[in-house]
């Protein structure tokens, strides 16, 4: 009568971790099975409902919400599950985090984590990216990073100066680059800086077909999220992704609370 299922009887295939790895580089990242499972559910829902456009933007209200992480995980899951050609386009020239996410810092204390991440980011060799392509200093083929998934490529932000960032974000070259990428890939996942951090985000978001807002679970104030959603209301909002969720209440208590 009061039987409880203590453990799952078997590990579902969907809960296996996924690993993304740049070919020929020591850049790799593994995503936990539970995370992959959530992102897989999200993508499957969007695909089944035909709400997943070819250009999907990932942004956040504030910095440090895990946009690059979610973008990479979504891209890896999409490429793994569908076999489609997927490109992760990093447009965050302010705080590029795509490659540093692929080279995760060793586990350190919470206080030093951000510092360690930044030091890892600084330790990565300068690599040409979108900025160099837009300035004509590198070709697209040179900057696209192949991964262990045949259809998944990464395009890092590259490096630029502060005064050039607004120009790049609003440049016709960027639009032309996107058209080129559209031709080569089924899906382009944009890694966009935080909405409340820079106004460039508004211009960059406008280049996408729809946006998802990454929100750090239990940290980001709802007022900031509302402000961000209001700022990007000119593009369709797919929804909110709560990242780094840690619900402390035991699941069995959740089940006892009646649904409204």
């Amino acid at each position, binding site marked *: 009568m009061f039987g409880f299922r203590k453990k799952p009887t078997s590990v579902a295939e969907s809960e296996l971790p996924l690993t993304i790895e740049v070919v020929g580089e020591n850049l790799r990242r593994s995503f*936990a099975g539970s995370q992959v499972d959530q992102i897989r559910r999200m993508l499957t829902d969007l695909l089944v409902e035909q709400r997943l456009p070819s250009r999907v933007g990932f942004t956040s209200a504030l910095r440090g919400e895990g946009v690059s992480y979610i973008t990479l995980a979504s891209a890896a899951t999409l*490429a793994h599950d569908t076999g489609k050609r997927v490109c992760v386009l990093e447009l965050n020239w302010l705080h590029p985090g795509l490659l540093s996410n692929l080279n995760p810092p060793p586990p350190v204390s919470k206080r030093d984590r951000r510092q360690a991440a930044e030091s890892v980011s600084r330790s990565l060799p300068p690599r040409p990216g979108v900025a160099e392509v837009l300035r004509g200093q590198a070709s697209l083929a040179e900057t696209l990073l192949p991964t262990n998934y045949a259809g998944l490529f990464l395009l890092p932000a590259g490096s630029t100066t502060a005064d050039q960032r607004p120009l790049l974000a609003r440049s016709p070259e960027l639009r032309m680059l996107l058209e080129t990428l559209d031709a080569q890939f089924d899906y382009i996942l944009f890694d966009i800086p935080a909405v409340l951090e820079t106004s460039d985000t508004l211009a960059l978001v406008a280049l996408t077909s729809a946006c998802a807002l990454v929100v750090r679970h*239990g940290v980001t104030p709802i007022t900031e999220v509302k402000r961000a959603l209001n700022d990007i209301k000119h593009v369709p909002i797919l929804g909110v992704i709560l990242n780094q969720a840690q619900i402390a209440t035991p699941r069995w208590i959740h089940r006892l609370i009646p649904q409204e």
Partner: protein
Amino acid sequence: MVRLIVLRLLESFFRRPLFSLAPFVLALLIGVGYILFSPPEYLSSGKIYVEKESLLASLTSSNSDVSWWVTPAQATSNEIYELLATNTFVRSAIQQTKLEPLMAGGPDVVWETFTFFRETISVNTLGDKLVEIRATTDDPELSYQMVVATMDTYLKWKMNNDFQESIAAQKFFEELIAPYQADVDAARQALIDFLSANPEPVRGERPPGEQFQLDQLQAALARAEERLSAAQENEESARLALVKNESLIRQTYQIIDQPEIPLRAEFSITGFIRNMVIFVAIGVFLSASLIGGGALLDRSLRFPVDVQNGLGVPLLALVPFSKEVSVPASTTAPVEAEQPSLQPQV
């Protein structure tokens, strides 16, 4: 909305369960410490039996001050509490205790002593006719003295209250009797003198002038005697009232149980439970405030219902926090994924 509030409160608790429970545990420990380390208390009590229906009282109907719906014990209890509210009563009671030296202190000390006395004395009714006076302090002798003093002062007050009136009346009439007696004596002497000077004629009647004077003297004597008699009657009544009142008080208020010096400290299970309940309630209140405050101040998004209600957009995913998964390095050659697509084929 209710679900959201419940979820947030639960989350606020389970996020920091030890921190949330800390005030409760702390209050519990303080409560236990308070009970263990508080000084022992000694209880002394005395019981007064109130018999309003005594023979003399019922004959003389002197106890009509009590309404029929208030029991004698209740009336006495109320009266003692009312008297305890007066400084005069408390002051005269304190005179009989070891608190008396404190009366030489400043006004604050006196006021604190009065308050201590009032708070220490408790009066309970045990049935319709029994009144219990209790005092609980950390000094057994003081407890005893306070109960004795309260009972004595009350009984004296009760006696004095009616005595004063009777004594005043008696004294008043006593003082009147002597001059009235002198008046009577003077009137009688005047009559005797008149009769000696004017004896009854052998034949015939007294002349009209003489008869008129005699009548006047006789009337004056009668008036003086009547006044004296009235004064004597009133004096007797006052004396009777005095005796009657004393008897009435003695019969009405009988000390059944004399207070004694307590030899053992009082352990009240009721007091223990009451103290613990107070501390537990404080702890629960503080913990609940902490949990509620935490939930109230937390303006972040925590549940799917937060996103739906607060933002009006769908929740796409709830990606759990996970530490870096360590997977052994694999070959970095691209793998061609040959899996069926979920994307509708256009």
